[in-house]
């Protein structure tokens, strides 16, 4: 019996994690990506391995997803993680007023936290604002975005998945009744177009999901929401430093290698192929970041970049939930053969893949269950060292 063939469009976090999950469940998997791995939103993530603390008060579903997946990623892919935890710090009365609901919400979402006096917080992280009023430790972390994706992709390759990078989807193949039967894609390295047939096509293009669904004449529920990140040339801290308050602009500083990355903002955009950097937002990151770590004022920006979150559901910007949605277009639009996964966060990539693979496997009547929670990933270098 031949294996069912699944084409995944997009080699960002969702695409590579879904390739890994479906390859482990016995599917023949082909991933197509118009650039190289992680050239869109995934590569340009802040790199925060969320504990869920940021979402605990307003968006419990996302917060629980984050803490659960945080713990799983620490086990299966420690090679890409700085697992040093995080601090939420209060600097004014408004922050202090937020503390009570923060503690309650974290407890409800089983996010372990510990309260620190200012002196204890400053002993752990001497470079945070000395006017800290109270601080809480939570299990945040930092990850290397490309290596996180490479570890999933390399392991997927080991289990037989094939990757076609620099390959851009031009159209979807249909059966005449509107159902999706594959893709026609342009190999940008050779200039040749090729048709590929599949039992199911997964649209894992994140902020670009609407481009693919439009090829099937369908609307996508995604709202690209860019934000800025500024990486400064000194590290300052070992932990992720968060402002103890409702999520806002520039309220996280993240250590990564020898840098500190301050983020972010949130605004709506339509076309996100190229998002220009806005000077005002750079200034805002300096202002807000230096409230958390005053010495950032003496540091130099090393890299400044924009990334477009793929948010789902109604509302705008920060009011949109950070959870993810997987759509079988057979159910939503009576178009068979196409599944769209979008929304979510880097931290929840494995869970997004599990949900998507569940939907795909149900369509293909595959009963194998998901084992990615327990499967340690191979070296991220395996993506390059495993033949395609």
């Amino acid at each position, binding site marked *: 019996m031949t294996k069912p063939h699944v084409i995944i469009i997009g080699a960002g976090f969702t695409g590579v994690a879904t390739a890994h999950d479906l390859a482990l469940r016995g599917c023949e998997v082909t991933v197509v990506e118009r*650039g*190289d*791995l*992680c*050239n869109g939103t*995934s*590569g*340009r993530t802040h*790199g925060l391995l969320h504990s869920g603390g940021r979402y605990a008060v307003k968006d419990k579903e996302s917060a629980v997803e984050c803490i659960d997946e945080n713990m799983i990623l620490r086990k299966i892919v*420690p*090679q*890409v*993680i*700085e*697992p*040093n935890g995080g601090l939420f710090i209060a600097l004014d009365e408004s922050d202090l007023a937020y503390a009570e609901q923060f503690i309650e919400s974290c407890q409800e979402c089983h996010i372990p936290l510990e309260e620190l006096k200012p002196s204890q917080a400053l002993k752990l992280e001497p470079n945070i604002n000395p006017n800290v009023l109270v601080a809480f430790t939570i299990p945040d972390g*930092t990850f*290397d*975005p*490309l*290596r996180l994706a490479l570890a999933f992709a390399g392991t997927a390759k080991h289990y037989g998945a094939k990757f076609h990078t*620099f390959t*851009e989807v031009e159209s979807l193949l249909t059966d005449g009744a509107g159902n999706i039967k594959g893709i026609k894609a342009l190999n*940008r*390295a*050779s*200039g040749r177009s090729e048709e590929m047939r599949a039992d199911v096509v997964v649209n894992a293009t994140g902020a670009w999901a609407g481009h693919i669904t439009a090829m099937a004449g369908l609307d996508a529920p995604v709202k690209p929401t860019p934000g800025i*990140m500024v*990486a400064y040339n000194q*590290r300052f801290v*070992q932990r992720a430093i968060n402002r103890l308050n409702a999520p806002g602009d520039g309220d996280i500083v993240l*250590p*990564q*290698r*020898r*840098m500190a*990355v301050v983020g972010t903002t949130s605004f709506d955009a339509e076309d996100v*192929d*190229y998002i220009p*950097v806005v*000077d005002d937002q750079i200034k805002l990151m300096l202002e807000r970041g230096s409230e958390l770590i005053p010495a950032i004022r003496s540091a130099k920006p*090393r*890299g*400044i*970049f924009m990334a477009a979150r793929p948010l789902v559901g109604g509302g705008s910007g920060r009011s949109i939930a950070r959870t993810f949605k997987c759509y079988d277009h057979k159910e939503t639009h009576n178009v068979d053969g196409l599944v769209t996964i979008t929304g979510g966060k880097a931290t929840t990539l494995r869970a997004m893949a599990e949900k998507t693979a569940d939907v795909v496997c149900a369509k293909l009547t595959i009963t194998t269950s998901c084992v990615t929670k327990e499967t340690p990933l191979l*070296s*991220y*270098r*395996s993506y*390059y*060292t495993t033949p395609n």
Partner: protein
Amino acid sequence: MAETWKITLRVYRQKENQESHFDDFQMDVNPDEYVLDAVERAWAFHDRSICFRHACHHSTCGACGMRVNGVEKLTCITSIRDVTHNGATLKVEPLRNFPVVSDLAVDMGSFYRKMEAVGARPVLPVTEAEIENPPSKWDPDDSQYLRLSDCLECGLCMSACPIMATTPEYLGPAPLAAAQDQGLRRKPELLSIVDCEDGVWRCHSAFECTAVCPSFVDPGRRIMNLRTQVVDIKLRKLFGKA
């Protein structure tokens, strides 16, 4: 109001089985933007067939290495102001010593196989990291903190090394630096990998690797140190003190 420069972005082009050539793109740029921004803009607004690699845009992933006006650069942190001037040309080419996949994108598989062979550490305790201004004495608790190692595995050193150009079998700067980082006394199995014709003795001390490294690894110095480690171990063996 941001400053605007007019530049000619000259991009190396090579598609499968075709002759290579350069394409010129006339662009208005903010000189404080990065070279990678100009390349991405050329792709977004001028020519969708340009292939290049990029991911993090802040020097943590090592994907966007290119030769910029002949010198290896991590293009996401190289500001246009630092490498050209108003009215001038900005030439971008793929890294050397790797097969070109398409245009500016190269296949670095051979490099990653070498990094894997020496077991390069992706993450290490902060107490073992070579950092600027380390404390005079680490708190014992600090050994629990881990950080991603400085080496981004971007391949700039492998492209700049004059020996790599003549001897593809040479282990190369980043893999030798990764061996030095672990230490031969801690990892004795590395001795035979680095103490050979294509290992630590092949280096001619050009220090091009150190000159282009965007991430403070200083492979040249580490290779010199690795040589002393090799000699030390061999002398100890000679005198029965291994």
